[in-house]
């Protein structure tokens, strides 16, 4: 690895989703191992644990083994994060377990992912969980989906079963509104098409999984993305006020005309400070602070925008939801809604006709809020179109919401 700091290298955040026994742990272990991200003491621990279980070869699935608390209590903690890098790119992997709470787990992992790998066992094909994973990837608007058809060694590396699964998945993907996906035949156990292209499947001409992960384009924001700056904190330096936050979308320049919401007051950007350095412009997702040309009443929870494209100011929130908590959410429940840096009280008006949502349910919600929110459709922005529902009694996170147009 180069020791100079390469500022052009970027990060791919991706999530893995699979059902029980389709080899996800082995695939993740293989990616880490074959990309040389596993260090000697970790491998030694895995070899030791494998020997204890009577296995001759190191079981790569043990690299992602759970905590003792999970084994003892029969629970799974939703997401484990893993980090590795190749000379091309850095990777943050949200490894979501495929058991009981798989929908909740995948929603959590997918919320920040640029790409999701949906894993299918070549012998079993598309199952109920696979359809769920496709639906979640579509709902959370994960920009890229890879369909990894695993255990190809167990179907003789043949093209026909692979093609059948791809066709089957394509039908469900279209139904879920998934814009597209990239199918890759792999064997995590043997290593075919994981890091290096396999010689066993001459009929497959696409990239190996890691090659695809290294090359898929990420993070590029549309050049005309509207400016959204949720105010996090007001920094006071003597008489001067700096409005601190992370640009959620768009580009801001010194001199831009801006509007503060919800007050509707307007002003001009007098200065942009990027962590101690004055700049002429800033771009999402930079953390910055702003000075305005005029004295304005701005506080945490407000949003600053520029241009004619402004978010909807509303007390009625309609959204697609995934319910995350064991306790159900019912029509009439009083809740808190956390959207960008703003938290408001709300009441559940409707749940798409259902009386309640249970854990892992995907559905629809209408909320009436005590104070207005500044909403963009989730389809337009994953930052300003997303919210969580919180139980005011104990602060538990109940539901994930994606604003509908």
């Amino acid at each position: 690895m180069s020791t100079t700091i390469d500022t052009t290298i970027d990060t791919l955040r991706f999530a893995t989703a699979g059902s029980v026994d389709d080899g996800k742990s082995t695939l993740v272990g293989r990616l880490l191992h074959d990309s040389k991200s596993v260090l000697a003491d970790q491998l030694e621990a895995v070899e030791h644990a494998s020997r204890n279980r009577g296995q001759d070869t190191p079981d790569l699935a043990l690299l992602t083994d759970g905590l003792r608390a999970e084994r003892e209590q029969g629970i799974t903690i939703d997401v484990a994060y893993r980090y590795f890098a190749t000379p091309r790119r850095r990777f943050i992997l949200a490894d979501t377990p495929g058991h009981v709470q798989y929908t909740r787990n995948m929603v959590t992992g997918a919320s920040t992912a640029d790409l999701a790998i949906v894993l299918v066992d070549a012998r079993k094909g598309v199952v109920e969980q696979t359809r769920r994973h496709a639906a979640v990837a579509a709902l959370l608007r994960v920009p890229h989906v890879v369909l990894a058809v695993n255990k190809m060694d167990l179907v003789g590396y043949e093209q026909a079963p692979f093609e059948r699964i791809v066709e089957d998945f394509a039908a469900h993907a279209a139904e879920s509104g998934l814009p597209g996906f990239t199918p890759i035949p792999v064997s995590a156990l043997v290593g075919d098409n994981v890091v290096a292209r396999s010689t066993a499947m001459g009929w497959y001409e696409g990239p190996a999984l890691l090659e695809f992960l290294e090359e898929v384009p990420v993070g590029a924001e549309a050049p005309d993305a509207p400016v959204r700056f949720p105010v996090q904190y007001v920094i006071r330096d003597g008489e001067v006020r700096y409005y601190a936050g992370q640009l959620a979308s768009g580009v801001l320049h010194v001199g831009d005309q801006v509007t503060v919401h919800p007050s509707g007051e307007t002003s001009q950007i007098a200065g942009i400070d990027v962590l101690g350095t004055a700049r002429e412009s800033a771009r999402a997702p930079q953390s910055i602070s702003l000075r305005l040309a005029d004295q304005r009443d701005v506080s945490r929870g407000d949003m600053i925008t520029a241009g004619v494209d402004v978010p909807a100011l509303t007390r009625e929130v309609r959204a697609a939801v995934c319910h995350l908590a064991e306790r159900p959410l019912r029509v009439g429940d009083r809740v808190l809604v956390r959207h960008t840096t703003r938290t408001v009280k709300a009441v559940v008006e409707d749940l798409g006709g259902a009386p309640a949502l249970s854990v892992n349910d995907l559905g629809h919600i209408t909320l009436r809020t005590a104070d207005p929110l500044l909403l963009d459709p989730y389809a337009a922005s994953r930052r300003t179109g997303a919210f969580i529902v919180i139980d005011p009694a104990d602060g538990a996170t109940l539901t994930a919401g994606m604003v509908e147009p």
Partner: protein
Amino acid sequence: MNPGFGHLDALESESVHIFREVAGEFERPVILFSGGKDSVVMLHLALKAFAPAPTPFPLLHVDTGHNFPEVIEYRDRAVAKHGLRLHVASVQDYIDRGVLRERADGTRNPLQTLPLTEKIQSEKFDAVFGGGRRDEEKARAKERVFSLRDEFSQWDPRRQRPELWNLYNGRHAPGEHVRVFPLSNWTELDVWQYIAREGIELPSIYFAHHREVFARGGMWLTAGDWGGPRSAETVEKRQVRYRTVGDMSCTGAVDSDADTVEKVIAEIAASRLTERGATRADDKLSEAAMEDRKREGYF
């Protein structure tokens, strides 16, 4: 990704967002500061996040009494330079008062939990920044950025909240607090590259120097009045550096000639051992050592 906005910029921006969220949502936050590189980077980010105003957070040092003098000197200099308020929770105090007893192996790392927890309670800290990174260890890999702790500082995996997008939920009952990990997504190499880029000063023991050490449990430990070396252990002078900074009794040095940040980065990039595997005796106690300490309220 945007041109000129590389992975260190993305990590920095994310961490600053976390610091500002805490400043906006909590009454009494504090930064755990050991003088180790991760806490030094945390402080650097906390200063940048609120510039040109001073950082709104005080520091809390859990003092094991087995400190490297170079690190204490660094801590005091940092506090003076930035005009910070420093809280200290002292393990030695607890031992002197008879509340805690010295362990047979002489290591004081596990003894830090009680003084830390009681200090959090007595000062009513509601958000406690820790420098933990998810790449460090498998229990940490499942840690949230905002991690809810009960009044005994315990980490209950079943009570951890799903954490979606960048919407951090810091709500807690009176007496509870939230541990916040702004460096969650950083790796050891990221931390060093950032130190190099920003020109951040570190305690001198991170760089190669000559030191009297002895071998124990496959590591080089520093001789000192904390309980080493024992009779069968022989002291020798070697060129070493530290990859992590903790209690002297369980933090090992590695043989190294890396005397600059650039050489340290080259050394880490080529290393075949994790930093904890190479230098922390406390994590070798059992397969679930970190998990057990975490549940009890460790960092």
